[in-house]
């Protein structure tokens, strides 16, 4: 997905790090095998990254500069236009901005703007992540009925967090591309909520 971007820009002191928010490495393996990434391609079964960066859906991208500072907070972008017909989001706009920043032709946004655009977690969001964590542990212990209670609670606490609501579906015997997901998405968007929240610039 991002391998071509990495190849194009790696000579400018740049890397891509992809992180799969999947319940097991096996779920991510087909994607990684198909993409053949030469950049770090990591697996985050416990949503460590989602918790640290308040990530609530995929894909989420961030830009980090040479000093390890966030210069573009959580945004939505795709490496290719494979899913454009579904998402309505074009890869090109972000790629153009990314190229300019990496090549040093244009600065990233000012710090004040980056802070303004950041979405910070609430106590409910963090409680939802704790419920998710307990649910996942119970699932791994072979106690799916108990896990289900905590997954449901997590989704109620943070209905906008699709790393929880959709990401737990494979652990709950639900198809994350199937009718239950479409029903969830329909109810969410019908209530006036966007599924993807790209930065408004």
């Amino acid at each position, binding site marked *: 997905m991002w391998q071509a971007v990495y190849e194009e820009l790696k000579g400018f*002191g740049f*890397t891509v790090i992809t992180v799969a928010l999947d319940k097991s*490495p096996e779920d991510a393996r087909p994607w990684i095998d198909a993409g053949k990434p030469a950049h770090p*391609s990591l697996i985050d079964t416990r949503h460590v990254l989602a918790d640290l960066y308040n990530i609530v859906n995929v894909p989420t991208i961030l830009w980090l500069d040479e000093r390890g500072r966030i210069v573009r907070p959580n945004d939505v972008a795709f490496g290719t236009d494979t899913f454009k017909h579904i998402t309505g989001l074009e890869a090109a706009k972000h790629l153009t901005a*990314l190229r300019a920043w*990496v090549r040093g032709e244009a600065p990233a946004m000012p710090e004040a703007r980056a802070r303004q655009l950041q979405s910070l977690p609430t106590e409910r969001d963090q409680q939802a*992540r704790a*419920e998710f964590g307990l649910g996942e542990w119970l699932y791994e212990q072979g106690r799916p009925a*108990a896990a289900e209670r905590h997954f449901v609670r997590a989704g109620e606490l943070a209905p906008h967090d699709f790393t929880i609501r959709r990401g737990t579906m494979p652990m709950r015997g639900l198809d994350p*591309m199937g009718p239950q997901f479409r029903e969830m998405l329909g109810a969410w968007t019908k209530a006036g909520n966007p599924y993807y929240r790209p930065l408004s610039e």
Partner: protein
Amino acid sequence: MAGPTFTLIDDGRAVDLPYAEGVERATRAEAAGRPVALDLEEGAAYLGVPASERARQLSSLEAPDFALPDLQGALHALSAHRGKKVLLVAYASW
């Protein structure tokens, strides 16, 4: 004879404790402001990180460090890429 145990999951690590001690530690963590998911029936609790701590870190704009495995199990730390610009991408198969 050992009584029932209580599993406390803190910072991603699960520790088995005597039941009463586990419940007490979970209760104390909650009183100290941490998000706690508790299941008395299952004898387990997950201690999370407070929103205030996450918000403070993120608003500093210092990218929080992490170390996660690749498919081969080798750990990669974000901090190992200091000195490079990084495009960090979260995705999933779902």
